[in-house]
């Protein structure tokens, strides 16, 4: 298949690995930001193919993983009301809130529906004028434009039964929080290709300037990732903390200007709470005042208690690249995809889930 097979080609992969092997002289800790990238690394075993000096740690770029439990509790609370239809993406259905997940709420009679696009949620609202349709909108800069578009469209059509329950997160403030933490080990970042496709490269150039850390935009196929790693190794070995775009078939310098325009019109940047990273200033989106009629947080009175944390789960350290899933005593024992203790085990993009899905054979051997 075109645009796919060439980026999974074993000969090209071998060539890139050889180039990296020749260049590397010491230990480097690199973080891939996006969960989709973690998924590819584990699926193809890229970390096992790389020379031992390259340590990959997995970043917070899994939207499901960093969505706070409280937002799920709010979604479940809404879903259980008689007159509300709660609509969201498939992989949000299994993410645990503090007592239930949306699948269990659905099994108990809540009207919960799965869609691929927020515009489908809009269609459900149009077709069911007697229902209040709430779209649970989570994700990074990638999913935000479509969510913004749904609200913009609802406003244009004067739909009065569509609402957004939003928990949007932004990548650059998370990178700032990671590199400015005293515990930080990461020496170079693979920036998320899809996010940069939307927002462009400027913010990442600024991060390189501010923190003297190399950042290379990478794609999601094995060749894309190894190419990004190869460039990062060159920059690190030469002591040049620079920015590079190694995913130019998708990412332009300015990004998707139309998408940025709709984001700007509908959302404003606000403080945001991240599961695992806590509250990060100016790291999320909320609906602007003129769209307040579509803001589920403002329209519906929500009374949600904060939940207690199981002490054993180390996903906070995992999402900050301080530990690996296999460092956790609960991993694969008390915590599995069927009964996850923490969000990184829930989403297929979560680091713990990727290790569990693809690496269990090596764990069996170790045991």
């Amino acid at each position, binding site marked *: *298949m075109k645009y*796919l097979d060439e980026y999974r080609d074993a000969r090209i*992969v071998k060539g890139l690995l050889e180039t990296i092997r020749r260049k590397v002289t010491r230990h480097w800790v690199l973080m891939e930001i996006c969960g*989709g990238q973690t998924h590819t690394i584990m*699926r*193809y*075993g890229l970390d*096992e*193919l790389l020379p031992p000096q390259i340590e990959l740690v997995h970043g917070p770029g899994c*939207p*499901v993983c960093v969505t*706070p*439990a409280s937002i799920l509790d709010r979604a479940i609370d809404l879903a259980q009301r008689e007159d509300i239809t709660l609509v969201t*993406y*498939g*992989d*949000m259905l*299994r993410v*645990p809130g*503090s*007592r*239930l*997940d949306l*699948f*269990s709420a*659905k*099994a*108990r009679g809540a009207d919960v529906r799965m*869609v*691929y696009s927020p515009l*489908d949620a809009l269609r459900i609202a149009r077709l069911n004028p007697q229902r209040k349709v709430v779209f649970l909108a989570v994700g*990074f800069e990638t*999913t935000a434009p479509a969510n913004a578009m749904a609200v913009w469209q609802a406003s244009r059509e004067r739909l009065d039964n569509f609402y957004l329950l939003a928990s949007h997160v932004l990548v650059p403030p998370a990178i700032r*929080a990671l590199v400015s*933490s005293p515990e930080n080990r990461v020496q170079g970042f693979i920036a998320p290709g*899809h996010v940069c496709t939307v927002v462009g490269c400027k913010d990442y150039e600024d991060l390189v300037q501010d923190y003297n850390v190399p950042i290379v935009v990478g794609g999601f196929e094995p060749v894309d990732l190894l190419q990004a790693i190869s460039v990062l190794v060159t920059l690190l070995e030469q002591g040049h903390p620079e920015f590079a775009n190694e995913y130019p078939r998708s990412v332009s310098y300015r990004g998707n200007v139309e998408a940025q325009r709709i984001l700007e019109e509908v959302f404003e940047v606000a403080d945001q709470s991240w*599961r695992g990273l*806590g*509250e990060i200033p100016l790291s999320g989106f909320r609906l602007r005042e003129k769209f307040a009629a579509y803001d589920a947080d403002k329209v519906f009175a929500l009374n949600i208690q904060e*939940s*207690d944390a*199981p002490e054993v*789960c180390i996903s*906070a350290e995992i999402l900050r690249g301080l530990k690996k899933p296999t460092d956790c005593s609960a991993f694969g024992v008390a*915590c599995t*995809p*069927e*009964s996850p*203790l*923490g969000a990184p085990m829930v*989403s*297929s*993009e979560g680091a713990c889930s990727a290790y569990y*899905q*693809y*690496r*269990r*054979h090596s764990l*069996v*051997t170790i045991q």
Partner: protein
Amino acid sequence: MKPLDCPLPIVDTETILLGHGSGGKLTAELFRSVFLPAFDNPVLNRMDDQAQLEIGNMRLAFTTDSFVVKPLIFRGGDIGSLAVNGTVNDLSVGGAKPLFISAAFILEEGLPMETLRRVVNSMREAAARAGVQIVTGDTKVVEKGSCDGMFINTAGIGLMRSDLHLSADQARPGDVVLLSGPIGDHGIAILAEREGLSFETDMASDTASLYPLVADMLSTGAPLRCMRDPTRGGVASACNEIAQTSGVGIQLYEEAIPVRAEVRGACELLGIDPLYIANEGKLLAIASPETAELVLAAMHKNQLGEGAAVIGQVTTENRGLVTLRTSLGTVRVVDMMANDPLPRIC
């Protein structure tokens, strides 16, 4: 930084979840914790697609299945052809010649008579093609909203050769894994027509009776170990069942697994692995290394097995697990499906 507010695990055992019907881990768990202890007997405990019964000198295969597919009519088939073929295939993979089928209809008030006629006609055609007769049945009608148009329950009886013992516990290290053709066609054809996921594709369901293919394979005289039709849960779940029941490892070769370009494309788009997608006309077989070539040649001669390939082998390593050798030469686990494949956010 504030400590993680990580939620407690949610293991809801008080209600049935959709995942309990996915053919993956939750289904297996439900079977082990509820049905197996209640109905415990040696025939059921074999956990094959069909019960193998000995009555006097006769060996019979007996199976039952329910069909709740949505939409009722899809490209390549409908709930009727699916019900007949699915029942026939559950018998065939035990090596039985399918003979008789029952059909019970649960109809929703308001279902157009035209839809029922179409489905029944398609059952008649599928039964004729498979050489089986629909000899008994039942009809119930439920109030509007109590079922999704139409559900069909079937049972099937087939006759087994006395010398055949095909079962999921027969795989041995060194055996070869054979697959009759490209995977994922049925699942993608259905997904393409689901509400909310509609996308354009020419993919048609592969629903078909596998008996002619099974008969050709058996006529080689090769002692086959086990056969499965990888329906819900796909090839991944069928291989996991065999690996666990036989206490062996199974290694699949990524590059050898046939997947049509259209299915691959749809899977890439939806973020789903074709190994977990349902098939309704594909056969997975485990054969001894000495006879694999003979069996493969017989498969290739049958239209249903034109695209047959060796896709893996049974190993002593990683017992109870299925692994995949990727195109890059690395090895990863192919887990049993935990839930229905969920479309990802991005």
